[in-house]
């Protein structure tokens, strides 16, 4: 009896601690997570590069997993694909392999040097290779264009015009027709950080509780009267657009793509509106990096080389709606939906009042709480109608504490800071 039990205990311990045998190159990514996109990666983008195990991970878990593997000293992951801001804490802990040789080859092959420099994350060596890029745009059903206020150019909208447009659509259809992804998994926080705040205040952190910000929130409240109340349930805007619940929406290009690709003739895609300080927009760069101590460095290098070939970059663009980092011309026969999105991205970048806002950097695992500051302000000011000044004051204190705790310096469009980014 005793023998049997001790055998059982030994056996279960061995089973619990034995690490699985790794025959594949493990590629962990926080991008292309939805099942359709992950399937495209597995079945199309990663074909012919050997045995790759493509694993998707939510950004918070990704950070936890990478840190746990680093602390344990045992790496299972050979290649990571993540956003600029998600890779930056890894580089801060010095846990990424330098990729300078790869970067040199790619620079020669037509990857813009400015983009490659982003991948250095402020260090002297190349920390990641830019993999694909995207941004956020607005999309509208063509039938909504008839309600556009007179004199308004859809490619150069202002907030006042958007409000006017929303009002007209609501009067005509009896229902609010503008939608935002403010659901639990929606990217609404990015709207505040990359679009709303830069457009109204010219900053993100420094100007958080300024008078400009208060005026901006007033505008947003006015706009919200014409926003579909289901917005607080929307995660991806392609579904409510396709289902006809809203006619105009703002979201990440990849989260609009399905609706637009399915019926490209029904939609127009255009830049987000401009505020008094310009047309804020947030470019999103995803990169590929190899963690230090990766079990299959060669396999990972091979995958990076494969994913940054012109053919695969174009395939990525047409299948999942992320744009190439290589300087390649999008082909004529590109998926018409993706072409529409690409047009809006170009229009945003080329607009005279464009104001770049970078993804937050240096917040480490506090990125979620940083988003929460904006979402809480939104909930209190817009949804619960609390006094703007009070909310901005208390949320500003939370933000200031977050900045001192993380010692994160300012990023564009905020002016550079010596220490932690101050909330003025």
């Amino acid at each position, binding site marked *: 009896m005793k023998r049997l039990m001790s055998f059982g205990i030994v056996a279960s311990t061995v089973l619990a601690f034995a690490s699985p045998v790794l025959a594949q190159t493990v590629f962990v990514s926080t991008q292309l997570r939805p099942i359709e996109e992950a399937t495209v990666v597995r079945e199309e983008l990663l074909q012919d590069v050997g045995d790759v195990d493509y694993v998707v991970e939510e950004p918070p878990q990704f950070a936890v997993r990478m840190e746990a593997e680093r602390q344990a000293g045992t790496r299972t992951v050979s290649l990571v694909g993540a956003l600029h801001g998600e890779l930056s804490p890894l580089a801060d802990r010095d846990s990424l392999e330098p990729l300078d040789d790869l970067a040199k080859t790619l620079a020669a092959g037509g990857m813009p040097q400015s983009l490659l420099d982003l991948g250095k994350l402020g260090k002297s060596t190349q920390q990641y290779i830019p993999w694909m890029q995207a941004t956020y745009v607005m999309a509208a059903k063509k039938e909504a264009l008839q309600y556009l206020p007179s004199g308004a150019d859809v490619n150069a909208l202002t907030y006042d015009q958007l409000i006017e447009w929303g009002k007209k659509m609501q009067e005509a259809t009896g229902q609010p027709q503008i939608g935002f992804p403010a659901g639990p998994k929606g990217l609404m926080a990015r709207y505040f950080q990359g679009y709303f705040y830069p457009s109204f205040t010219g900053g993100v952190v420094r100007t958080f509780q300024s008078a400009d910000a208060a005026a901006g929130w007033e505008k947003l409240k006015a706009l919200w009267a014409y926003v579909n109340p289901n917005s607080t*349930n929307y995660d991806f805007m392609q579904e409510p657009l396709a289902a006809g619940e809203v006619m105009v929406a703002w979201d990440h290009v990849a989260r609009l793509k399905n609706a637009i690709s399915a019926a490209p003739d029904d939609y127009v895609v255009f830049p987000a509106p401009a505020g008094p300080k310009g047309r804020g927009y947030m470019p999103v760069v995803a990169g590929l990096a190899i963690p230090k101590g990766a079990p299959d460095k060669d396999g990972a290098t091979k995958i990076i080389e494969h994913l940054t070939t012109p053919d695969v970059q174009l395939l990525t663009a047409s299948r999942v709606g992320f744009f190439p980092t290589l300087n390649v011309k999008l082909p004529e026969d590109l998926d018409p939906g993706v072409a529409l999105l690409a047009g809006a991205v170009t229009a945003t970048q080329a607009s005279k009042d464009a104001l770049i806002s970078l993804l937050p950097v240096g917040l480490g695992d506090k990125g979620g709480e940083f988003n929460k500051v904006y979402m809480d302000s939104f909930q209190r000011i817009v949804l619960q109608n609390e006094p703007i000044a009070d909310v901005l004051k208390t949320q500003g204190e939370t933000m200031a504490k977050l900045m001192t705790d993380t010692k994160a310096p300012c990023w564009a469009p905020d002016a550079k800071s010596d220490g932690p980014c101050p909330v003025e």
Partner: protein
Amino acid sequence: MTKNRSWIPYLLILPSVAFLALLFIVPLLQTIWLAFSDNGVPSPANAQRMMADINFTRSVKNTFLLTIAVVPVQLAIALVMGTMVAKVGRGRETILWVWTIPLGISDLAAGLVWLSILQNSGYFNSLLLGLGVLERQASWLSYQTPVALFFAIAVAEIWRGTAIVMVIIVAGLNQVPKEFREAAEIFGAGPWTRFWRITLPLIRPALQSALILRTVLAFEVFAVVYALGGRNFPVLVGEAYTWQNQNQNYGVAAAYAVLIMIISLAATLIYLKAIKVDPERLP
């Protein structure tokens, strides 16, 4: 041989005790420490942060409201179903089997089922549009319709969680000796009197277990609410999830976890005191 035998029972439960200690008590203590420490020193910072959060009061209120609305209804429905099925002869098993189907569906799936019914382009709106009751799609699950949202979540929870109460109640009803009822009938007791005076007191142990189980589960409600209400209807477990997952603040998440545990323990104690079970009727 007899000498040895006295400790055999202890030896036999040792693995499960060790298992519990390893996988339950250790994480429990770790969670409590996580909740009441900050950078390795004891501190109430996490609890304060939790209570100062904008969603805290709402999540406590919502969780309690939901529990108060859902549990009594579930108990009543389960009692009715249990008594009904007691009279059925043939096909009893089939009826019970059909009634327990929601038990086999995961919380989240149940939430999604109800979402497909109640969302703007869902079956419910289609039905109302078809009947001409509505002119255009109505939204039932938005922050502007808190009452409809609450009602939707409560209905989904009742649909999903009544089966488990019924299973326990049916088991309890099966143990009520027929003789008692027959004796009462002979003395002229009507169906109501029999139910109140005989059945209910005799199924007390079952009632107690069912109430404890359902109430604790109601305090831990999450997936159905998440599917239907998202951020619009904060509940305690949802907040713990958000703090852990989205905000990456394990301390505040642990504070929520400890709070949920305290509430659940308190509810259990109240039931143990309020619904006394005779010691000889305990298993």
